[in-house]
């Protein structure tokens, strides 16, 4: 990897952390009205896993995967609009958290029922297989979700159909307050792979380079058409399930042990020792991170509130032609799945959605009222 790539990874990990730190502040200030779920400690896993992907690949993230969104070009502005329930957020204020994404940019938006996104990942991968593409799907879930039926149905179906899916388990020690030993009776969650006839490995999820190596092996396997693979990234949720959770059920010594393995500090130490990271480069990255977060918050706070007169709108998608995502011309706005037909504008989840600059909110033309 070039030094530029190393620095980019470092930037994305720090941006992920800084976005979440600011989100927490906004929550404590009462400016975010709903639940806030962050992932301090996951940055090596989320950023590292997504860094192994190529153009045309798709991510199926869970609710703590801001790092994946940012790697794939997710817009910090859109993320902040979403947290602050603005009318121009990707969900137009209909949903909160990181429940955002659009298929034109290869992101399946998560829901709160953890594990349910994995069968959906199979459908995306099934389409790629049917269309004979070399693209793949990276689908993640937590240790808690591995206990659900859909997790097992998805892994089994993916393996039987030889679907191009890399399943990432972010094992952060707890499903809300329930520790691993009350959830499963095996040592490593990657052992689940054996039962479904796919390769599986467990990796230090706080070591971004180790994550990239392990997930890289998995993506290579999957891309070659041999079927799915599973990687368990062992990490730790050093904060509560949500910001309303003090997580006093976590032994202090355990938390401190993991805080000492902070993925950003570890990567920074590596970069300093092995890649000649300079103080000037660090300062530059810190400044860019701060500027990006400030801009996102400023933008979101200046954005319009959701329009209450639209509360009963957008129940049904309008009639019209649809494209198969990823085919030539599929982004032509004449296709109703190429743009957000609720607003008549491009999807706003990504950084390249420039129209978000002026925060215009156009009244939808084809509203289907129930």
């Amino acid at each position, binding site marked *: 990897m070039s030094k530029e790539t190393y620095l980019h990874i470092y930037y994305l990990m720090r941006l992920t952390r800084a976005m979440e730190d600011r989100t927490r502040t906004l929550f404590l200030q009462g400016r975010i009205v709903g639940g806030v779920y962050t992932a301090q400690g996951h940055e090596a896993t989320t950023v590292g896993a997504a860094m192994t992907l190529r153009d045309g690949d798709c991510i199926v993230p869970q609710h703590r995967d801001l790092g994946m969104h940012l790697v794939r070009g997710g817009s910090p502005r859109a993320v902040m609009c979403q947290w602050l329930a603005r009318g121009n957020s*990707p*969900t*137009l204020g*209909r*949903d909160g958290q990181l*429940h*955002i*994404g*659009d*298929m034109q940019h290869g992101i*399946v*938006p998560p*829901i*709160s*029922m953890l594990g*349910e996104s*994995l*069968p*959906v*990942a*199979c*459908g*995306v*991968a*099934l*389409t*790629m*297989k*049917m269309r004979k593409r070399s693209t793949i799907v990276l689908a993640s879930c937590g240790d808690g979700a591995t206990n659900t*039926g*859909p997790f097992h*149905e*998805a892994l*089994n*179906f993916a393996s*039987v*159909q030889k679907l191009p899916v890399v399943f990432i388990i972010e094992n952060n020690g707890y499903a809300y307050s329930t520790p691993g030993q009350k959830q499963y009776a095996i040592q490593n969650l990657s052992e689940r792979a054996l039962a479904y006839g796919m390769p599986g490995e467990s990796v230090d999820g706080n070591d971004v380079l180790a994550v990239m190596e392990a997930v890289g092996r998995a993506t290579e396997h999957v891309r070659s058409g041999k079927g799915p693979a599973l990687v368990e990234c062992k990490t730790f949720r050093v904060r509560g399930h949500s910001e309303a959770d003090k997580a006093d059920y976590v032994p202090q010594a355990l938390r401190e042990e993991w805080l000492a393995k902070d993925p950003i500090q570890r990567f920074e130490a590596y970069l300093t020792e092995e890649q000649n990271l300079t103080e000037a480069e660090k300062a530059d990255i810190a400044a860019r991170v701060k500027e990006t977060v400030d801009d996102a918050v400023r933008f979101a706070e200046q954005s319009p509130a959701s329009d209450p007169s639209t509360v009963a709108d*957008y*129940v*049904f*998608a*309008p*009639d*019209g032609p*649809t*494209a*198969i*995502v*990823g*085919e030539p011309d*599929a982004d032509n706005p004449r*296709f*109703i*799945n190429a743009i*957000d*037909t*609720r*607003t008549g504008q491009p*999807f706003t989840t990504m950084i390249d959605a420039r129209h978000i600059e002026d925060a215009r909110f156009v009244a939808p033309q084809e509203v289907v009222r*129930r």
Partner: protein
Amino acid sequence: MSTVTYLEAIGQAIREEMLRDEAVFLLGEDVGTYGGAFKVSAGLLEEFGPERVIDTPMAEAAIIGSAVGAALMGMRPIAEMQFIDFITCGFDQIINMASKMYWRVGMPVPMVIRGPAGGGTKGGPFHSASPEAWFFHTPGIKVVVPSTTYDAKGMLKAAIRDNNPVLYLEHKLLYRLPELREELPTEDYIVPLGKAITRRDGEDMTVLTYGAMVYQCLRAAQTLEQEDDLEVEVIDLRSLSPLDLETILESVKRTNKVLIVHEDTLTGGIGAELSAILAEDLFEYLDGPITRVAAPDVAFPYAPPLEAAYLPNAEKILTAARKLAAY
């Protein structure tokens, strides 16, 4: 030109849509090599191959969830539930994933979930379900129930071409009913979703029904004409969500009496919502109580005498209609 059954019409719709649009494919349990538990998809695997006619593991969340994922990619999957009762195993994918998707993020989910519904086949509590009310209550999914061979084909085609999740309920009692054999148009046609159809004209009472109950209602209407000199209008709702309120309200405004008949259980059923709509919108037009005939609020029973006691039929409809007509 030969006639086809209700079941064959469903198979024709799938085949013709697969020929018309490469985005359309079928997945479900035993739909490929075996041709489906009721043989709806017989011959499709041979014609389209295993990539477009997919035999899946017994895993409804994977079947429906994969359909959602493919639909997000712009495919038009048809997910078969071997018996519609098993849709509960994939409930979350429908309620929380598919139905909220467009509303939440603006991405259409063009998919069909279909399967055999309804009782009268000695199927017992797990092979006789009429699950429409759960989904009727859910914003973002359309629910349709064809009762004729013509509609079975035309509505399935419309459902496949729709840009939303559509639950398509086929009544297994109608699958091979000889009386339902029809000669279908040779050219492509659809029956638009959201439109009811009047199966019998009348001025004395409106009967609102759907699915296999249409035939019980028509039988009762004939008796009422012959024995009671009553002209009963029978409206086949066909599409439960969206409902064709225009047709319903127009008829009841004219007849001033309304009887609602469904095979599903009474409480919280389609009839409950129809009753509320009619009471709210047509209060001053009604000359008698809005009356419902439905299954009792219990699970679907197995033993023949219990099944017969459970299901609404022409006789029960007659009794209710006569009581209503007396007002």
